[in-house]
C-alpha cells in the first residue's frame, strides 16, 4: 500500500521528467545519432525560440489570459530587424535593430494587454485581432518581400555559440532563469498568480490587477520580439510570412508543463519540460524518418498523451 503511494507520488512529481527520459531512451535506441553532442545541441538550438515564447505564455496563462498573436509578433520582429538593418547598412552595430524590434513588439502586445485589462475584451478576441493586425503590419513594412539579412554581427545571435553551446539556447536559459526568479521570488510573481487565481479577491487585497495584466502582456511582447530576432538571425532572413502557428506550440508547451488555461497555477520548470518534449518530438520524428503524413498525428497524440498522464496523476491526489 505504502509502496504504491510512493510510486504514484514520484510519478506525480516527476511524471513529465519520466516521460521525457523515456522518450530520450526510446529515440536513442532507435536512432544512434540521437545521443551525439551535435544532435543534443541542435535540439537546444531548435527549441530556444519556442522556449522563449513559452516563458511569456506561461505568465499570460497564469493570469488566466491567453495570447495567440505571438506568431505574428515574431514575424513583425524579424521584419523590423530587416528594415532597420537595411536603413543603417554599412555599420556593424546591430543594437538599434534589436532594440527597435523588441520595442515595437512590446508596444503591440501592450495594446492587446490594454484591450484585455481596460476594455475587458476577451483575451482570445483581443489577441486574435492583434494577430491579424501584426501580420498585416509585417506585410506592409516589408511589402511582402522577405529582407535578406547580410549583417555578420547579426548572424551571431542565432548562429553563434559559446564554446560548443549554441547562443540561442544560452539566451533561452538565461531568460528562463530570470523569469523563474521573477515568478517565484518577487512580489510581482505572487501578483501574477493571485490575479489568475481570483481577480476579484486580488483586487480586494489591494492589487492593481490591470497593471499586472498589462505588464504580463508587455513581457510577452518583449519575449516575442526576442524570439523573432533569434529566428531571423538563424535563418538569415526577416520574412513576414514566417512563424505562423508558433503560438500553438508555445501554448502546448505550457499546457504539457502543467499550466492551467484557467489561470492561477503553473510552473516554469514544467514549461521547460513541455518545450523540450515538443522539441524532442520534432527531432525524433525527423531522425527516425517517420512518414510526413504520420508526423502530425504522432505529434498530436504525444501531446494529448503527456497531458492526460499529467492531469490523471494530479487528479488522483484530490
Amino acid at each position, binding site marked *: 500500500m505504502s509502496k504504491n503511494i510512493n510510486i504514484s507520488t514520484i510519478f506525480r512529481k516527476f511524471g513529465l521528467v519520466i516521460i521525457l527520459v523515456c522518450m530520450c531512451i526510446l529515440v536513442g535506441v532507435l*536512432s544512434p*545519432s540521437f545521443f*551525439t553532442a*551535435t*544532435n543534443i545541441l*541542435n535540439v537546444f*538550438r*531548435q527549441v530556444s525560440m519556442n522556449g522563449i515564447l513559452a516563458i511569456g505564455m506561461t505568465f499570460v496563462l497564469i493570469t488566466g489570459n491567453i495570447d495567440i498573436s505571438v506568431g505574428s509578433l515574431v514575424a513583425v520582429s524579424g521584419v523590423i530587424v530587416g528594415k532597420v538593418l537595411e536603413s543603417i547598412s554599412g555599420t556593424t552595430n546591430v543594437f538599434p535593430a534589436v532594440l527597435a524590434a523588441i520595442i515595437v513588439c512590446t508596444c503591440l502586445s501592450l495594446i492587446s494587454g490594454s484591450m484585455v485589462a481596460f476594455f475587458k475584451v476577451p483575451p482570445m478576441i483581443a489577441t486574435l485581432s492583434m494577430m491579424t493586425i501584426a501580420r498585416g503590419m509585417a506585410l506592409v513594412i516589408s511589402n*511582402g518581400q*522577405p529582407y*535578406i539579412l547580410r549583417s555578420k554581427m547579426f548572424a551571431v545571435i542565432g*548562429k553563434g555559440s559559446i564554446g560548443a553551446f549554441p547562443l540561442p539556447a544560452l539566451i533561452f536559459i538565461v531568460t528562463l532563469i530570470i523569469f523563474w526568479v521573477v515568478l517565484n521570488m518577487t512580489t510581482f510573481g505572487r501578483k501574477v498568480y493571485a490575479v489568475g487565481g481570483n481577480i476579484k479577491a486580488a483586487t480586494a487585497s489591494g492589487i492593481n490587477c490591470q497593471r499586472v495584466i498589462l505588464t504580463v502582456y508587455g513581457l510577452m511582447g518583449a519575449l516575442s520580439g526576442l524570439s523573432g530576432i533569434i*529566428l531571423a538571425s*538563424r*535563418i*538569415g*532572413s526577416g*520574412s513576414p510570412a*514566417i*512563424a505562423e502557428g508558433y503560438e500553438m506550440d508555445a501554448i502546448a508547451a505550457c499546457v504539457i508543463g502543467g499550466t492551467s488555461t484557467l489561470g492561477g497555477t503553473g510552473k516554469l520548470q514544467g514549461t521547460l519540460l513541455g518545450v523540450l518534449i515538443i522539441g524532442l518530438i*520534432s*527531432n525524433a*520524428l*525527423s*531522425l527516425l*524518418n*517517420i512518414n*510526413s*503524413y504520420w*508526423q502530425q498525428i504522432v505529434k498530436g497524440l504525444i501531446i494529448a498523451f503527456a497531458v492526460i498522464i499529467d492531469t490523471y496523476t494530479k487528479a488522483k491526489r484530490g
Partner: protein
Amino acid sequence: MKKKLLGVVLAVTMVVSLGACGKSNTETPATEPEVKEEAAEQESESTPKASSDKEIVIGVCIKTLSDEFPRQIADAIENAAAGMDNVKVEINDAQADVATQLEQVENLIAKGVDAIILNPQEADGLNTAVEACVAAGIPVIECNTMTSNEDYNCYVGSSDVVSGRMQGEFIKEAIGGKGQIAIMEGVMGQTGQINRLKGVYESLVDVCPDVEVVAEQTANWQRDEAMALAENWIVTYPELKAIMCQNDDMALGALEAVKNAGKQDSILVVGVDAITEAVEAVQSGELACTVFQDAVGQGEGALNAAIAIVNGETVEKTIDIPFVLVTKENAADYL
C-alpha cells in the same frame, strides 16, 4: 502659408496617385475603354464571330494576388494585353478562396466575356466553374495549375514533374549516380509536392540503384522548419550527398544548416522557383541549382491561346512553357 498649401496639395496628390497605382493592376484597364466597349458590343451582335479588329474581352481569374508567382502571371497577362490595342482583360483576385473564385467565374459568364483564363485555386473545387463555362460556350484557358475536369480548351503551364526531373538529372550528374540523398517536401498533398517528388523519382531514384533516399520529409515550404529539419539530417546521415528541396525558401533554410555544419563542400542543396535570394546564392556557388519557372511565359502563353481560340484558331490542348535550370553559369540572367 503658400508653401503649406503646396505641401498639402502635394500630399493629397501623392495619396491619390498611390491609390491609383494600387488599383491600376485591376481596374484601370476595366474602366478606360468603356465607350469603345459599347461600340464593340453593338457590332458583335451583328457579327457573332469576332474578327481581328474587334475588341476581345478576356476575364482572368487568379487564385491570389498576394503570392509572388500568381501575381507575376497576372502582371504578365496585363502587360501583354496593354500592348495589344483590341484586347481588354479583367483581372479578378480570388484571395485564395475557392468559393470566391467560383463566384468570379460565374460573374464573368454573366457578363458575357469572350474567354476566361483560369488560374484555379484548387484542382477539384473549380470543376464546377469549368462546367459552367462549357455550358455557356465560353472557352476556358487554364494557366499554371489544372482542374481535374479536363473539359477546358487549353492548359498553359509547366509541369511540376518536369521541375523535379530537372533537379534529379542535375543531382544525378553531380553526385555521379550514387550516394545518399534527402528530399525535403512542401505541404503534403499539394500538387507541387506530389509532382515534383514524382519527377525526382523518375529521373534519379528509379534509374540509379546506387542512390539511396535516406529521408523524405516535409518542411511545409517554410524556411525555419527546413533549417531545423536539415540540422537533424546532417547529424543522422553523415554520408549525405544532397538535399533536394521542393522550393527555394526551404533550400535557403537547408543551406543555412549546411553552412553552419561546415558541410558546404560535401552536401549539395537544390531548390525550385528561382527567387532572387536563391539565384544570388546559386551565383555565389552556395546553392547548387534552382529551377526557373517562367511566369511571364505562362501568362503571355495563356493570353495568346485565349485570343487564338476566340479568333477561331485551333490550339494545342496542352501548351508547355519550359522550365529553365539555373546554375552558376546562367544565374546572372535571372537576377
